[in-house]
């Protein structure tokens, strides 16, 4: 077993050495370096295009997905090796997208075979870019109270309503959305999960400006949008099951977000800033470093566990602890850099402000704590 894994590591290393363009080996973390793919994607360079193409052929844009749907069918150990080998040469991720992180896992679990064949391979190849239509002006923490409605008209749904906080809605090709298909049922039982092409007449988007400045968030409006019923994932009125499953994935993803600091030691980051830290600030930073190291081990442990058992509601802990920690890290960077971080130019302030959303998006910290107390600890309410 270990021998087979060693072989896999050797061939992976050799393949990456031969195929990863030098320009793609800077482990760049800034927004501009990310390849999101999609119908309207303009590659930043020929190297970026080539890297995506080569990785997609290997199935390594989505390494753990089945080969039939564009992945490479890697197990967790192999996936870990691939990640390690990519990190070893500083290779960028060839593609990032909500299709990979969110819709893909939901389709693999709830989609029909036809839906998987239709939607997954274009995600894996970076040809179609997805966005998520969950929140509404009146449905934030109380997500199940979504009011955007889809009325049946023969083989079609007619969708009317508004979504908010739709990341990259203005750049996405398709949206997966929660819509109300039964207004008389209890709120969790009247929701469906549907897929809508963003070019369908009646879909419009408008960007939202945040305290951190420009943002990927948009408002998305549906005005008599006609979309086939066959584009529903899961049963009609059972969309909440899909939504919950997907939220768990989202929570795991957000919890892992190290922001601009990535996996680097906070101590090293602060030292670089040439900050002569006061004892109080230094102590705060050490506390944060300790919690960061322990959180990283916890993410690994949960990922290993997810190989055999569903993490389920406990993912709320990852989301809660991971995002609160990320906010602390960014607060510390701001304090360490002092007035040097107060101009927009360095980017720290933008990053710091942006992290304030981490404990709101994908379910607030308070909602996470309620999920833990009720569903993990079994407390009443």
């Amino acid at each position, binding site marked *: 077993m270990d021998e087979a894994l060693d072989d896999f590591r050797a061939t992976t290393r050799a393949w990456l050495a031969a195929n990863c363009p030098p320009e793609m080996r800077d482990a760049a973390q800034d927004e501009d370096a990310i390849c999101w793919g999609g119908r309207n994607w303009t590659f930043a360079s020929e190297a970026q295009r080539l890297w995506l193409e080569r990785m997609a052929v290997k199935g390594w844009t989505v390494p753990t997905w089945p080969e039939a749907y564009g992945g490479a069918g890697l197990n967790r150990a192999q996936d870990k090796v691939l990640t390690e080998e990519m990190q070893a040469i500083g290779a960028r991720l060839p593609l990032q997208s909500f299709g990979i992180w969110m819709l893909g896992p939901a389709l693999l679990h709830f989609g029909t075979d036809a839906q998987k064949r239709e939607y997954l391979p274009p995600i894996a190849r970076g040809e179609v870019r997805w966005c998520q239509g969950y929140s509404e002006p009146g449905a934030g923490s109380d997500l199940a109270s979504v009011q955007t409605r889809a009325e049946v008209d023969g083989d079609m749904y007619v969708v009317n309503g508004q979504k908010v906080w739709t990341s990259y809605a203005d750049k996405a090709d398709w949206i997966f959305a929660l819509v109300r298909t039964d207004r008389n049922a209890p709120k969790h039982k009247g929701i469906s999960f549907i897929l809508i092409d963003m070019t369908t007449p009646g879909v419009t988007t408008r960007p939202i400006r945040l305290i951190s400045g420009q943002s990927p968030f948009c408002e998305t409006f549906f005005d008599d949008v006609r979309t086939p019923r066959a584009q529903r994932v899961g049963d009609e009125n059972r969309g909440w099951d899909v939504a919950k499953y997907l939220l768990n994935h989202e929570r795991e993803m957000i919890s892992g977000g190290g922001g601009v600091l990535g996996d680097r*030691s*906070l*101590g*090293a980051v*602060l*030292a670089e800033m040439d900050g002569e830290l006061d004892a109080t600030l*230094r*102590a705060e*930073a*050490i*506390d944060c*470093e*300790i*919690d960061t*190291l*322990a*959180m990283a*081990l*916890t993410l*690994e*442990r949960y990922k*290993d*566990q997810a190989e055999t058992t569903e993490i389920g509601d*406990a993912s709320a*802990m990852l989301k*809660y*602890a991971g995002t609160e920690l990320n906010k602390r890290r960014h607060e510390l960077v701001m304090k360490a850099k002092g007035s040097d971080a107060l101009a927009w130019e360095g980017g720290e302030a933008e990053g710091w402000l942006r992290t304030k959303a981490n404990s709101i998006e994908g379910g607030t910290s*308070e909602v*996470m*704590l*309620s999920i*833990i*107390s*009720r569903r*993990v*600890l*079994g*407390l*009443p*309410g």
Partner: protein
Amino acid sequence: MSLLPTEDEVMLAGAARGFLDRAAPVTHLRGLRDAGATHNAALWSEMAAMGWAGVLVPEAQGGSDMGHAAAGVLAREMGKTLAASPFLSTAVIAATALRQVSNDRSAKALAEIAAGRLTYALAVDEGPKHNPHATRLEAVAEGNGFRLHGRKSFVVDGGTADRALVLARTDNGLTLFDLPLDRDGITSVPKAMIDSRDAADLDFGDVIVTGDDVLGRVDDAMAVLRPALHAGQAALAAEMTGLTAGAFGMTVAYLQERKQFGVPIGAFQALQHRAAHLWSETEITASAVLNAGRILDSGEDATLAVSLGKARATKTAELAVQEGVQIHGGIGMSDAHDMGFFMKRARVSAEWLGDYSYHAETIARLRGF
């Protein structure tokens, strides 16, 4: 390297839980305290018979040699019901120290430990905070041996152990001695500790020792002591996660049972969120502590992993017992309730082998602060 428990570890934990619930529930510690005792020799014999005393002793010396992660499994289960035993001092710390030295004396001592016939204490600290390098107890060379003079404080199990590993300052560094506690000139003064466990001050008034009493090499104590401290710190951290789980379990049960204003108090969001936060902390700490055991077993340098485990375990145990008492309200303050035992043991465990700040400083050094 996975932090998930192996099948063997799951079985070991289950067997340990079964035994401890019968032989050493919290009422066992309460009974010892009420009787003015800190230790039950019969309990340790039973643990030894199950291979626990030899958990880190090689099979050649009759040990079960299960490793540090397994020692952590046992320590965690003991912590859940605050089982008092010489496990950490003897089976973990002394056994690890003795394993660093290959000679007949060590082999014999390891065999005696595994058989449950020999117990040890670790005599390192002299002041109120853990700090091996602040050792002032002198070992002055004299003839073929040394004359020891000074005192040690907070020697865990120092009132009941047969022998002690004693850290002393020699001409060019620190030296570790392996001495019987009935050696002429050693006076043990047991203290009535808040956690009802054994700890003593040891006074060394011109104790004559020989070169044979040195464990390892003269002036090179850390070669033997460092691995022993790491093993002890990791196992103590594991015990503290057990303690935390025990206190937390009582707290969650109380949130469900206790009614005020006509509803279970666990229905109040203010308390729900505190319980949920505490549970999150226990999960994160569990990873750090499991990792320490795994790294020790791998043979890699475990300094960072061990300090991370002990630091997190200390902080989380502190939170768990404070929330435990507060959420229990008045009953949590009463001696009739067990929560106080958990709080007191958490405080003693926090200090033993280095508190949060001690380990945080170690981590800071290793992480570039």
